[in-house]
């Protein structure tokens, strides 16, 4: 474990490491958090991750963060927390060990070793992911029988469905229940402007009395309902009556309404 300790303070080397071009080109978008950065830096040391120099890694990381901050000021908090922690760890690693550990803190070398171990773990998982990807994958590298008609035997012994399916089914219904209750489809209305425009176009044909029902457009499968078509046409016609272009008449309450173009006074 003591091998993990670096020789005592060598600040010049530290500065050099931070400045030399070993420092990564900062591209935060490419990284998924501080651990990812640390792993990328650690791999550059080209040693077994468990024999990593954590002091050097800390320096590189701090240089990375410094550089990142000059570019984008708002570096995510994770990166800064890790930086602070590594700065502290580094200082403890560099301090000569003086007698029994003071205070309850764990041995710095041990903490460093665990960081290295954690990186090794992430690295192992990455490699595992690659190894999986490299396997012959069904539908990409290997294929089962293609003729669906030839396929007749089905294994019946397994009931499909897992908890996720069960949860999805439950939530799906709850959603539908909610939608059922709170979302009546809003009725579409026939715009007044459209009704007026249409009436104006129809004016030449309205020389004789014509019923409102006949004047209003017919209902289509989609679009406004009949009631809206009638109402908007009536409103538009009343406006045109006011403007002197149209006459309207109704014999009795609730009776049919008749419309006719007003004869232009010659």
């Amino acid at each position, binding site marked *: 474990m003591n091998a993990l300790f670096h020789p005592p303070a060598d600040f010049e080397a530290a500065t050099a490491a931070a400045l030399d071009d070993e420092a990564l080109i900062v591209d935060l978008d490419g990284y998924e958090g501080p651990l990812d950065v640390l792993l990328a830096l650690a791999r550059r040391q080209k040693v077994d991750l468990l024999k990593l120099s954590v002091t050097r890694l800390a320096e590189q990381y701090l240089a990375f963060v410094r550089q990142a901050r000059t570019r984008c000021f708002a570096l995510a908090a994770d990166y800064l927390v890790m930086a602070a922690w590594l700065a502290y760890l580094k200082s403890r690693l560099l301090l000569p060990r003086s007698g029994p550990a003071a205070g309850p803190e764990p041995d710095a070398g041990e903490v460093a070793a665990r960081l290295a171990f954690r990186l090794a773990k992430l690295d192992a998982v990455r490699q595992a992911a690659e190894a999986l990807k490299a396997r012959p994958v069904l539908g990409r590298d290997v294929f089962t029988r293609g*003729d669906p008609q030839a396929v007749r035997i089905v294994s019946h012994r397994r009931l499909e469905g897992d908890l*996720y399916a069960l*949860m999805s*089914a439950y939530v799906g*219904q709850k959603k539908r229940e909610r939608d059922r209750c709170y979302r009546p489809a809003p009725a579409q209305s026939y715009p007044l402007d459209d009704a007026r425009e249409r009436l104006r176009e129809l004016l030449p044909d309205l020389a004789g009395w014509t019923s409102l029902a006949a004047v209003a457009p017919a209902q289509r499968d989609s679009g406004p309902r009949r009631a809206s078509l009638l109402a908007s046409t009536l409103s538009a016609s009343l406006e045109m009556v006011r403007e002197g272009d149209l006459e309207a008449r109704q014999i009795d309450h609730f009776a049919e309404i008749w419309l006719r173009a007003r004869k232009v006074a010659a």
Partner: protein
Amino acid sequence: MSGPADTERMIEALLYAAAEPLDTADLAARLPHGADIEAALKALSARYAGAGVELACVAGRWRFQTAADLAFLMTKEREDPRRLSRAAQETLAIIAYHQPVTRADIESVRGVQASRGTLDTLLELGMVRMRGRRRSPGRPVTYGTTDAFLEHYGLAGLGDLPGAGEMRAAGLLDLDFPADFAAPDPTHTLEDEDPLEDDDAPQFHQDFLGVEDGAHRGS
């Protein structure tokens, strides 16, 4: 690099994975140029002769098929339902989370009438059982899940059913879901439930008919 043996292997793989029989032109189009397809088909045919699967040429197209004398194996189709219908899946979910529930409860959540077959399927599969009767007018039968249900879903107990937190974590609850959405606690026992009596068992549907005859005196 492709000798006759390679061509044979390639044709074998192509015919196996193809969705329909292939003729020699189809094969030629997909094989390296210059492959001797006729010879390879002959060799392949000889290799498969007498096996459980045979190479057959139908109307100039080639395909693998199971040997005719083994047709008797293929006729056995068992009819156990193995994929739950959506209705069954949903009904099961409601029973799991809301148990004990009555048929009317299920219908009120699903918004549709529970078809008779759905609940029967679940009962037959042993996923669902009748638990008791609710102390309410008509004394409807209540349903709950079985041990087989727990086993199938790998749950130690009903308390292990995923809750709202997990649903959210699994991305199932979108943002416009009420923040206070909570899945009900299936371990909760309602006090208004009576145990089933012996003569209840076979009468699955009696409860819905409303023909409660007062035979059940247990209050």
